[in-house]
């Protein structure tokens, strides 16, 4: 058994979500898409943890698995000390109230046939919040005001709103059940830059007001750098690096992180010349490369990288799954030891997060 941090809100160990590939008339399983292939995470109350990666890395699946919109095929999830993966669907239901999600596509996330009021109130109905319909309507009005929408509009339909407004409706809907953890799954990726700024500001305010914790899933590193306290970098179903945002951006430890950071175009007119550092294309998650998933594209790979799973190398503020991580403390120690050492030592040392201004 691994040691869990006492003050963590959410702990994930060895999470696996594999999707079987069926083919043939009899639909036999002959492979699997390893969307999430052994993910370890800890989320502390009040922080914003970003989960970044490119398409196919599994970050969205992690979010959906945490909410059990898709069932994990392996691993454990603890929320406030309770093992969620062991719970039946009914027993899990009350936990849904504590974890909510805001999704990427504001158009698809709202039922076009429901009024805004019914959409926002949906969770309240499900959990019995608010004594009667009128009270719920009142709460909807309050929530709409909070996300800067005119409550008069609550009887309209989603198609009458712009993308940014629809995203606000999604946020209001998630807030209606008073969650503790909010998973933002590419919540700003489909929005124009100026609207994104509005939504990010809103999310920042709400987090401070309601003492929320965010798991912010995105591919936009610029947003991560601005918004997140810690960041976990995912590649092909695994977390390859985890640490405090400033450190990861300043001194990335994993070659993939380095390649990812190197690919961000800068906005400084004096600095130009993005040099691509990752060769070739992202492989398919149904046939990940052996050993370290990144080795075919890695500029500094060794012979052993294709043969063995890379060990978890602890860092001051997290870890990196690369044999070549600097400041590696031991020479190829046993994985289980590292996992225990990492979970009990590294995180709490640095404290959780700085208080929000």
């Amino acid at each position: 058994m691994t040691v869990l941090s006492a003050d963590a809100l959410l702990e994930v160990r060895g999470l696996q979500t594999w999707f079987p590939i069926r083919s043939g008339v009899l639909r036999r399983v002959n492979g699997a898409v390893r969307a999430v292939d052994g993910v370890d995470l800890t989320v502390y109350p009040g922080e914003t943890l970003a989960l970044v990666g490119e398409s196919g890395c599994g970050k969205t699946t992690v979010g959906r698995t945490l909410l059990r919109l898709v069932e994990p095929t392996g691993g454990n999830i603890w929320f406030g000390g309770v093992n969620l993966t062991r719970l039946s669907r009914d027993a899990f239901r009350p936990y849904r109230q504590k974890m909510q999600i805001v999704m990427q596509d504001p158009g698809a996330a709202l039922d076009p046939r429901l009024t805004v009021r019914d959409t926002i109130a949906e969770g309240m109905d499900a959990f019995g919040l608010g004594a009667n319909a009128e009270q719920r309507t009142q709460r909807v009005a309050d929530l709409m005001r909070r996300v800067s929408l005119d409550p008069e509009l609550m009887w309209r339909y989603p198609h009458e709103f712009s993308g940014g407004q629809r995203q606000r409706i999604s946020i209001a809907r998630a807030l209606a059940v008073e969650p503790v953890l909010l998973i933002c799954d590419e919540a700003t990726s489909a929005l124009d830059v100026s609207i994104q700024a509005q939504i990010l500001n809103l999310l920042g305010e709400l987090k401070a007001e309601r003492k929320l914790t965010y798991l912010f899933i995105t591919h936009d590193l610029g947003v991560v750098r601005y918004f997140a306290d810690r960041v976990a970098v995912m590649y092909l179903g695994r977390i390859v690096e985890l640490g405090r945002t400033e450190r990861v951006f300043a001194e990335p430890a994993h070659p993939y992180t380095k390649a990812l950071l190197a690919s961000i175009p800068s906005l400084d007119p004096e600095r130009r010349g993005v040099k691509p550092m990752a060769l070739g294309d992202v492989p398919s998650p149904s046939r990940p490369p052996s050993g370290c998933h990144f080795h075919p594209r890695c500029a500094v790979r060794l012979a052993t990288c294709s043969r063995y799973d890379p060990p978890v190398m602890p860092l001051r503020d997290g870890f990196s799954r690369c044999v070549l991580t600097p400041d590696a403390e031991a020479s190829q120690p046993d994985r289980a030891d590292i996992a225990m050492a990492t979970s009990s030592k590294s995180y709490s040392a640095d404290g959780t997060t700085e208080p929000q201004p």
Partner: protein
Amino acid sequence: MSTPLLAVENLVLTFPGEGGRVAVVDKVSLAIGRGETLALVGESGCGKSLTALAIMRLLPKPGRIEASSRIEFDGRNLLELSVPEMRSIRGGAIGMIFQEPMTSLNPVTSVGQQVLEAVLLHEKVSRRAARERVIELFQMVGIPDPGARFGAYPHQLSGGLKQRVMIATAMAMRPRLLIADEPTTALDATIRAQILELLRQLSATTGTAVLLITHDFGVVNEIADRVAVMYAGMIVEEGTRRDLLGQPRHPYAQGLLKSIPRPEARGGRLEEIKGVVPRPGRWPPACRFAPRCPSAFDRCRAELPHRTEVSPSQGAWCHLVEYEVHA
């Protein structure tokens, strides 16, 4: 300055709308010199993609290019050309690549075959010579193992490779102008870097001018020489890359750049531009940005601003800038 390769003057595009025809692009003028890369930047709905389509005369049917517009390419007015003449220019002297490489390729033909057809359409060469040219192109755009890749089908290729195929097709006839509409938006970050590098390289080696349509200032900084910012159907500021990214003058351009999350902004609020972009047909009467502009004053609501020259290379359509410059 030598005559520009492409000169668009007073382009007006209209679509049917409430109460007759509605302008979605309103008197846009821009110029691209030979070998130069101009980025046309704006958020969704500003009309930048339609402008690009109009230059190729590929505007979707209910849309119309109004008679007052003029599009001059290499000395000829494109709007006066006959259909076959225009067709030979498209894919010939002017190449175009789109945002979604997934949907731009025919799924039932091999990619090599598709590029081959494009080559044969414009040049009278044997199939063997055309095939060689295609493989050469594949090499030029960095497709590994080009000979083998000739017979590959689109679904066998990744997004990045498909986009390279699109670039190969566009570059096949050694165009003088390449129009790229959000070429990297649908691609992953690491692939995006590769494609941007490729575009920069190609433009440098072949001397092709590029009209780049994008909403991403990072991309602009990477490969553009000059920039034009669009808002609600018109250009509000233009200048060199350094001008726009270093000292933007128009409040919209400033607001846009400030709302991009930067590490320095950590812990605080991002600058917001309040409100939403007005839709065509509902544009404010005078300066279209006035309702959202933090520096708007009376004249802004009464009169549409015209171009103020900030420097020989930079210009802005803004009354405030006009005052600042002439003060």
